[in-house]
């Protein structure tokens, strides 16, 4: 097992290197630079700025320098906020996004799993149609519509939750709901499909022949197999969840990571673009590994083969 994890981590290194290289050159070839502004900067000051950030070196030297720093774990200073290190900015925003992501995941699972299970058990009744239609709506309802709608209902009208901010537990509710709803929709669909598939299997019949109750059949036997596709989906989805959502952070004024992902590109904040991209890639690779491990826990067969 340890060897497996180690080899996966070693495999990730070249992938990350390719990502870093491509991103580095892509950002540099995009028009506009980090210091372009409506009030044009005098040439001599631009030269000064460039030399401060090492942009005056030949591009390939910059690249080598970046890699060298990267190997030492240094992501460099942000171009947009020169007083701050990229790693510091990501480090301060990540806990926020992590909290939001985990809460949304909880909501997605708390809504999605029961909805999917019920829909599967009551296939082709209103208990199937209603959650499945809602989930279709959840998939096609963009968060920039859902967010303001939830704010209007729960904040403006009912006054239950604050419409923005990230200060206390009550602030967490609406953004997590907004973010979680989309995933809940997916989870519900996948759970339903997985459960329907599993409930057809022979071993469910075996369990029934033993005299197991419905409850026992679902939770003791069917759920584990039925959840495998959900777990597979949740790996990459979770990376998306905890790397922040620009739209939701903007709507709810949350100091999360998503903003850096989007604005870094617009600001041509080279180091920040690279930092966020590498962070995200690492996250994905790690979560894929985690999913494989989790699958091994859920599925004894893959456990012994890996």
């Amino acid at each position, binding site marked *: 097992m340890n060897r497996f994890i180690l080899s996966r981590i070693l495999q990730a290194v070249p992938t990350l290197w390719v990502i870093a290289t491509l991103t580095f050159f892509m950002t540099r070839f*995009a*028009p*506009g*630079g980090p210091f*372009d*502004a*409506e*009030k*044009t900067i*005098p040439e*001599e*000051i631009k030269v*000064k*700025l460039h030399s*401060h950030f090492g942009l005056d070196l030949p591009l390939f030297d910059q690249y080598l320098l970046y890699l060298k720093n990267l190997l030492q774990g240094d992501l460099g*200073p942000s171009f*947009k*906020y*020169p*007083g*701050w290190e990229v790693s510091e*900015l990501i480090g*301060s*925003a990540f806990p926020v996004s992590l909290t939001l992501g985990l809460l949304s995941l909880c909501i997605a699972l*708390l*809504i999605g799993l*029961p909805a999917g*299970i*019920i829909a599967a*058990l*009551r296939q082709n009744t209103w208990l199937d149609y209603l959650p499945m239609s809602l989930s279709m709506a959840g998939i096609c309802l963009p968060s920039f519509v859902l967010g*303001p709608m939830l*704010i209007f209902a729960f*904040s*403006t009208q009912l*006054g*239950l*939750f*604050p*419409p*923005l*901010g*990230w200060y206390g*537990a*009550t602030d967490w*509710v609406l953004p997590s709901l907004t973010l979680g709803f989309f995933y809940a929709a997916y989870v519900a669909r996948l759970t339903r499909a997985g459960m329907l598939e599993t409930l057809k299997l022979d071993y469910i019949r075996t369990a029934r022949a033993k005299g197991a*109750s*419905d*409850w026992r*059949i*679902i939770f003791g036997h069917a759920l584990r197999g039925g959840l495998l596709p959900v777990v597979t989906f949740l790996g990459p989805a979770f990376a998306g969840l905890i790397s922040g959502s620009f739209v939701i952070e*903007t*709507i*709810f*004024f949350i*100091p999360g990571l998503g*903003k850096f992902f989007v604005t870094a590109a*617009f*600001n*041509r904040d080279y180091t920040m673009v690279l930092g966020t991209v590498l962070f995200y890639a690492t996250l994905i690779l790690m979560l894929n590994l985690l999913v494989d491990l989790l699958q091994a826990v859920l599925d004894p067969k893959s456990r012994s083969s890996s």
Partner: protein
Amino acid sequence: MYSHRLNNLLLWPASLALWFLLHGCTQPTNVEIALDEQILHFGLGAEPQHLDPHLATSVAAHNILSALLEGLVGEDPKTLKPVPGVAHRWEKSADGLTYLFFLREQAKWSNGDSVTAHDFVYSFRRILNPSLGAQYASMLHPIKNAKIYHAGEKSWDESKVGARALNDHLLEIVLEYPIPYFLELLNHYSWFPVHRPTIEQHDAYARMGTAWTRPGNFVGNGPFSLTSHRINSVIETRRNEFYWDADKVRLQGIHFYPIESVDTEERAYRSGFLHLTQSVSADRIDYLKEKYPGELHCEPYLGTYFYRFNLQSPPFDDLRIRRALSLSINRERLVDKVLKGGQLPATTFTPPGTGGFFPTPKFPYDPQLARQLLMEYLDEKGLERLPPIELTYNTSEGHKKVAEALHGMWKDTLGVEIRLLNMEWKVFLSTISRGEFSLARAGWIGDYMDPHTFLQMWRSGDGLNMTGWSNQSYDAALARAETSVSPEERMDHFQTCEDLLATEVPILPLYFYVHLTLRHPSVKGWHPTLLDHHPYKHVYLATEDEQ
């Protein structure tokens, strides 16, 4: 097939929701608490890039720095006229070239150190130091020989820069040429002092991006001091007890929130999270006027919204087409029906009242003449109709709306087809600066209260010109305005410049900005000003009845 007990599963989410219902009880809002606490909750609009006054470049930075630092002079909260700041009085020589500032002895840094004339000289030297690469260093170029030092060829002493500390509390500044608005200039953050030991401790004299501006490190001399800074979340300041005029400061602190989305900011305001918003979505004006009649403020602002023509390529190399496009814009209607924020139609480039300058309105609306000019042009070129014109703008709802409205006006009056091209901001900037446009959106916010901040950019070959327009009479008039001592004469020269812009039409002024804001009635001592400066030491929070 399966028993009904499964329906219990439905109770899960329901009970969770109930839990939140019970716990999500309403708490008093920021604005309600603030009446006791005297904390101003301020919508900042954007996260400031720097909190270093010598490197800062944004309005957001100004809003914070004017709380943390104080220049030689202060501003009158209503007129923005210079009032005593760190200097309790000053003297100006008869030729208008030499200023003596008498610094008050009570002026202190937030760590208790005295603010001295040496601090100011040190600060001027720092911003002008070419190694720092300060963008706004040119703001200090009016100081004698500052330009020479800034060019980097000579040392400070060799350059003989005209700023000297005569003693700890007496500062002499000698100017290159007389500047009528010199004292107003001093309120720009590039003139603010920095605390020498702090700068040296962080080796920030010639380096950007050091940690000296972090809370705990920052030492300022303003009415407030920095207590916390979380990127994209909040910047908190607290009353500075060492401030010389601390007795007058009634606010206990100001919290700045960099909320970028106007919609979110509006929701924040409406829920009592903010006292002030940085701006208001143009589409919401009607709605807010109705709902919050006394709280929506449209205040004139020192800025012009305009389009640039590219004179280097047809059809805008021809004056008639430029004029025709200008003449067929109904600016009144644009302002009243589309923008609706109380903006003023721009019939000059410089906003009226800038430093006492009231230019004569030009740029009329005359569709008849516009059509005639277009016909003439088409006949001469033997064209059936004008080929479609590309209008480039950076992506934003507001810019799109204006562009769409003009698209309609030109189509209706001239039958000219306009193609709108939106671009991402940085791509837009690089496209425009390379001259790859024919008609492009632009905006200009004045840095100080003088027409010069507007009119200088149309000088031939100026980095900000970018239209390809060059006019010797304009250059000459501008040069004369820069050196003349008499205010009346200056205004005459500026008027000449304005006239030339109106006859040559290298640009298309559309409207003058307003500062649209929602402001809570409990905010007192806050007055509309052209530069949107609001000296915080006069601001306090009170309910309607207590004054």
